[in-house]
């Protein structure tokens, strides 16, 4: 799986936002705030990957156990999928 192309990610006022552009903006209105591990998960989803591989990336950055990281990834990924923002 990977994120649909067409999002622009920028820091605005010290927060990180992903904003839909071009044709994606016609389907998906609004913007996504990326906080904490959300930034790394989003970054990882820029290319084809798996939940497992993303969890490995988080464990390399954060001092958390695998269960917590896996739960974070699962929650984030399922929200993206619900919004129709994942390919594959």
């Amino acid at each position, binding site marked *: 799986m990977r994120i649909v192309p*067409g999002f*622009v990610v*920028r*820091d*605005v*006022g*010290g*927060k990180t*936002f992903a*904003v*839909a*552009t*071009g044709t994606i*903006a*016609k389907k998906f209105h609004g*913007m996504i*705030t990326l906080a904490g591990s959300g930034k790394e998960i989003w970054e990882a989803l820029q290319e084809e990957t798996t939940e497992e591989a993303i969890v490995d990336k988080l464990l390399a950055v954060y001092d958390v156990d695998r269960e917590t990281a896996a739960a974070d990834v699962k929650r984030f990924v399922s929200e993206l999928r619900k919004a129709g923002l994942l390919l594959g």
Partner: protein
Amino acid sequence: MLIIGIAGLVIGIECRHTYLEKRCAPFQTDKKPDFTVTVTREMIEDEKAKSGECPAGADDGYFESLSAARAIAHRLPAYGAFLFHAAVIEYRGEAVGFTAPSGTGKSTHIGNWKRAFRGDVGIVNGDKPILRFSPDGTLCAYGSPWAGKEGWTRNVGCPLKAIVFLERGKENSIVPLSPADAALPVMNQILLESDPETVGKTLALTDRMLSAVKLYRLACTPDVASAVTAKEAIFGK
């Protein structure tokens, strides 16, 4: 073709209806446009489809005007400028922008500033001013033809000192906001539906704006004291 001058830019507009032409009158110029937008039939239909509630008597001319604003908004970030959804006044030459969902009482609040401070207060624009950074880094707010239902606008530009998020309150109180607190509400008042390059530029300008102006949340009553509360926080007693 209509040609208007705003914020140091000359903009050409190809359109058919007199509605927009009338509103552009205070801004008309005969200089050579920096860029031109053309409003098509399809854009007008698109605008109708997007519109939720629209004022009574909204006709093709009205929607053509909105289409032109949208088309211009897409071009502005390339010039370091953007369209901001807010009502802007100036107090002794310095601008304050008020944003709120429609029906909150923006117009009432601005009326209170005029009543409290009379000649010290002037309208810049009632609905969609253009904001642009000057070469010296000052962010200025400029009146535009898109002035809201009161038609409040002037062909002026003033340094923008503050943005105030307005909400109704039982009493008047004002608190400063951090750029992080204000980021999302500010982004909601800026057109972000565009190509990646334009959106990237708009977000960079928004980030710059958040550190260039003071930010506040004002809970206000509909009476004149609300303007005094806001003015004292922004400009001192």
